[in-house]
């Protein structure tokens, strides 16, 4: 059996005429390198996916962690999940607002609680109680995401634009 890793940074309306953020390819390469470093040493798939996603959560080019899309009220409300194929154990969080790496919080839910999915303020409290690295909204939110939200809110029906996620 040979190790392998695949990643994504979101699907959307990127074209050669409208390529999206310049640093995206570099961030993808760094995420692959982080996961590969685990696998090439015989490490577990679970550690590899967490390592790769953490890089992408920190990359401002993608809609996750720092650089996430904003809710109608201008809040970075983050969701994440992780799953282990051998045991089908899984952990997930929804609507968290104060953790740097939601994927690691999801893993903590999987490994340090009897639950699968925690949401909102409870999930934020779980992060604090289990020592996950915090992040402020100021750190999570980028100016271009605020601008994107203003454009969206200016629309008469205020409908969100799925295609404008750019990952």
């Amino acid at each position, binding site marked *: *059996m040979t190790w*392998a890793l695949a990643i*994504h940074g979101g699907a959307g309306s990127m074209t050669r005429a409208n390529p999206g953020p310049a640093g995206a390819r570099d961030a993808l390469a760094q995420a692959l390198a982080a996961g590969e470093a685990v696998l090439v040493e015989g490490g577990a798939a679970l550690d590899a*996916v967490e390592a790769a*996603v953490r890089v992408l959560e920190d990359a401002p080019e993608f809609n996750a962690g720092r650089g996430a*899309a904003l809710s109608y009220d201008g809040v970075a409300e983050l969701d994440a999940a992780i799953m282990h194929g051998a045991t089908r154990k899984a952990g997930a969080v929804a609507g968290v607002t104060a953790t740097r790496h939601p994927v690691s919080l999801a893993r903590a839910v999987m490994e340090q609680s009897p639950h699968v999915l925690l949401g909102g303020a409870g999930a934020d409290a779980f992060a604090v109680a289990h020592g996950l690295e915090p992040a402020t909204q100021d750190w999570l939110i980028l100016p271009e995401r605020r601008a994107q939200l203003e454009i969206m809110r200016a629309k008469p029906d205020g409908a969100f634009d799925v295609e404008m996620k750019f990952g």
Partner: protein
Amino acid sequence: TVGAVARDAAGGLAAATSTGGVTGKRWGRIGDSPLIGAGTYADDRACAVSATGSGEFFIRTSCAHEIAARIRLAGEDAATATETVLAEITAMGGTGGVIVMPLDGAPFWRFSTKGMYRGRVTADQAAEVGVFDDE
């Protein structure tokens, strides 16, 4: 939305997804990413999947689990299962993409949008990244 699927040297699979959702989401809207079986799923009997796109459609089709179930129960190959489920999502009006890690062989992706940020690396294949649908 970002995600990863992996297979380790022992053959174990894993999947992970993380997202900010969509710009302007209201009323506590949650998409497919944190829903196990919709946007994220891993099963050593079938495959590992991470999805991105219009989450409501990936939830309604239980996309990630459906791909794994078609492989496990119907004996479909991973590519056929993936294309079939994505076609269902498209027929419903959804758009997006998935990355899939099969039990053996190279990981792959399928997407119905103009582009998808993606990459892969294996023990036998150097790292590659892509954005546009024609690369």
